[in-house]
């Protein structure tokens, strides 16, 4: 009986693959904008339609600038198609934005208040980021479904979007992960790279979640500060009106004006806190879930190969038994099955090698993009903070002479 050592082969030098991907960078000249949210229809059947505009110089597209109207379920439909084609072979498919029953119901019911406007804006921005990430993926960009999404004026309506939401896909991924864990795969990972990377992503996930929670608190409190500043501004104005010393009265009115402007500043800063910092973190938390899913698919692939090898062994045993028992037709059957399973083992090995290779490339590309993303956003965020402080300086510098003028 042959004993085959079942272990993942070390095929590639780890750093070479990653470096390759980092060097390629993003040389794809394509930009996507999602804009002009428009309510279509009435009541519970109403939906928001978004304009998706593509600007590109790539030759695969017939025009250099074009736009279409899409609704949220169309985005989910796109994602589900891409996920079903590419996830299980190791590509990190960017997840679509989350569904939100509460948010959407408010919009449908026609609540024209600031919270539903905020919700629509949040969604619009998230859809834009989603498409940008998807088109920047070299393999996904080639996909016909993606092109159809961007170009076709009419899109067949995506059905059963319940299962197709980002959360739905993640649930599937998580279930697969659990199943894999339960199988207690003793995968002899002789390629430490995968184990290391998985651990790294696990840690990163935890840290990002912690940071995200604290940033959410910051956004909340900054909004409160804005509201409280506005309330104070009003009471300062009232006090100024009551004050019977003319110069002091004027100064207090000026103070009220300054505070009102500052309240606006705080509000804008809260938006920056949210859209730049908080949303970046939550996007990456979901992206990392997709990365984890891809690693789990590799495990499943390995398991399939392993199962094929075990089955092949059994078939060989059966053949040997048949030879001893001298049953010629059973021997032939056994030989056929052996051939079948040898082919499956070979395919299993090829698939496993392929997915491992793809994942290495993908992780390299992902990490390069992540570093760029984080650096860019951090700088943009800090610049927003600088802006706020500079405005504060302007306002207080204008107020100071007013205070000094109180005689």
């Amino acid at each position, binding site marked *: 009986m042959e004993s085959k050592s079942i272990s993942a082969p070390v095929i590639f030098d780890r750093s070479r693959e990653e470096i390759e991907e980092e060097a390629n960078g993003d040389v794809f000249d394509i930009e996507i904008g999602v804009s002009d949210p428009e309510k279509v229809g009435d009541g519970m059947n109403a939906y928001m339609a978004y304009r998706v505009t593509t600007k590109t110089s790539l030759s695969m597209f017939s025009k250099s600038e074009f736009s279409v109207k899409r609704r949220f379920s169309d985005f989910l439909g796109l994602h589900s198609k891409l996920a079903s084609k590419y996830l299980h072979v190791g590509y990190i498919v960017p997840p679509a934005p989350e569904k939100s029953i509460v948010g959407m119901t408010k919009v449908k019911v026609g609540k024209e208040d600031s919270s539903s406007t905020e919700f629509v804006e949040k969604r619009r921005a998230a859809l834009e980021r989603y498409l940008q990430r998807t088109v920047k993926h070299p393999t996904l960009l080639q996909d016909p479904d993606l092109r159809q999404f961007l170009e076709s004026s009419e899109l067949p309506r995506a059905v059963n979007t319940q299962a197709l939401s980002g959360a739905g896909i993640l649930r599937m991924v998580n279930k697969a992960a659990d199943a894999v864990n339960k199988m207690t795969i003793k995968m002899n990972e002789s390629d430490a790279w995968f184990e290391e990377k998985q651990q*790294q992503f696990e*840690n*990163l996930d935890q*840290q*990002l979640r*912690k*940071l995200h*929670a*604290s*940033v959410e*608190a*910051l956004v909340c*409190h*900054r909004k*409160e*500060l804005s509201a*409280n*500043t506005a*309330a*104070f501004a*009003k*009471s*300062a104005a*009232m*006090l100024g*009106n*009551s*004050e*019977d*010393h003319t*110069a*002091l009265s004027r*100064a*207090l009115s000026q*103070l009220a004006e300054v505070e009102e402007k500052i309240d606006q500043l705080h509000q804008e800063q809260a938006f920056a806190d949210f859209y730049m910092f908080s949303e970046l973190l939550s996007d990456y938390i979901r992206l990392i879930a997709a990365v984890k899913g891809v690693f789990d698919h590799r495990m499943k692939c390995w398991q399939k190969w392993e199962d094929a090898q075990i089955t092949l062994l059994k078939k060989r045993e059966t053949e040997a038994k048949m030879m001893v028992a001298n049953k010629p037709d059973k021997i032939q059957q056994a030989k056929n099955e052996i051939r079948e399973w040898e082919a499956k083992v070979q395919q299993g090995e090829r698939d496993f090698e392929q997915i491992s290779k793809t994942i290495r490339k993908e992780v390299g590309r992902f*990490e390069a993009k992540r*570093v760029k993303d*984080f*650096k860019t956003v*951090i*700088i943009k965020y*800090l*610049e927003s*903070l*600088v802006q706020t*402080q*500079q405005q*504060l*300086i302007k306002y*207080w*510098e204008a*107020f*100071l002479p007013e*205070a*000094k003028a*109180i005689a």
Partner: protein
Amino acid sequence: MEGRQEAGKENKPSSISVDPQGDSSLQVEISDAVSERDKVKFTVQTKSCLPHFAQTEFSVVRQHEEFIWLHDAYVENEEYAGLIIPPAPPRPDFEASREKLQKLGEGDSSITREEFAKMKQELEAEYLAIFKKTVAMHEVFLQRLAAHPTLRRDHNFFVFLEYGQDLSVRGKNRKELLGGFLRNIVKSADEALITSMSGLKEVDDFFEHERTFLLEYHTRIRDACLRADRVMQSHKCLADDYIPISAALSSLGTQEVNQLKTSFFKLAELFERLRKLEGRVASDEDLKLSDMLRYYMRDSQAAKDLLYRRLRALADYENANKALDKARTRNREVRTAESNQQLCCRRFERLSDSAKQELMDFKSRRVSSFRKNLIELAELELKHAKASTLLLRNTLVALKGEP
């Protein structure tokens, strides 16, 4: 928690201008203060060349209740009915701060040691700030009394400053508190009654204006004070939020890939510094804005009380007039009625004269205090905004310089 403070003039958040004229024959200050389990002991130091005192420099230890006793003694004294009695200092209240420290001690195991140390630092700073404020409030109360030409000569004031032993004034028990509460209700009812009394004419435009003004002013400044407090709380909240953010960025830095390590470390440092700046913005707004508004809310209440006393005196005068008329008609006890009427008249005129002066002083005190604090507020806000800008710009330069 124990706390001590050497309250020198530099430490004092002097948001209230006490004495526009400046007279150094009686100087009072709180030179030391100790916070014990549930009370604060203030060391009141007096320097004076006035002949009344046995020494030129002496100290006594007083607690909050004794300050209240002194304040109430002034309020109940008929001689000072025509004066604005400086508002009593608020009771030292460390409850909220103590609770927070306790909660921190009980521990949330998910926070790191650094985070814990920073939060503890924040809370201790808060405790210290409250402590300093209560000392300042008690000091300002005494200093206003010492600066006032009439109030400073009060016998109880001398006793308060000089008597070495405990004044044995326990805190008000529930009956007395209730009594005080009821007295306030009676006072407002009385005031409403007096103003609706027919025949009661406000003869003086000045007082008519002052009444309308003070009524509205007091309500609005109270509002402004409450809302300023909330703004200050929000700033504190923000500063506290930076603690876990900085900690999370730090741990990200330790385990990140090389290209992002420095970025995260620098960001962590940035947020730590921003936290301190935001904290200073909060405490400056507290001192220059909230505290000032709060003080003048109380002072304007004291002014309202003065107006009420004068109104009461006017009503008494009117009643005495009516009684005299009645006595004359009936020709009975005319002399008693006459002398009573003269008494009321003199009292009313005395109150009106001194009230006028007091209210004008109140205005000039208020204006100069607001001016000082608004200027200081603007200057501090500018200082912090400039420091933040510099900090942010330096971080940006460092980050952009990264490959």
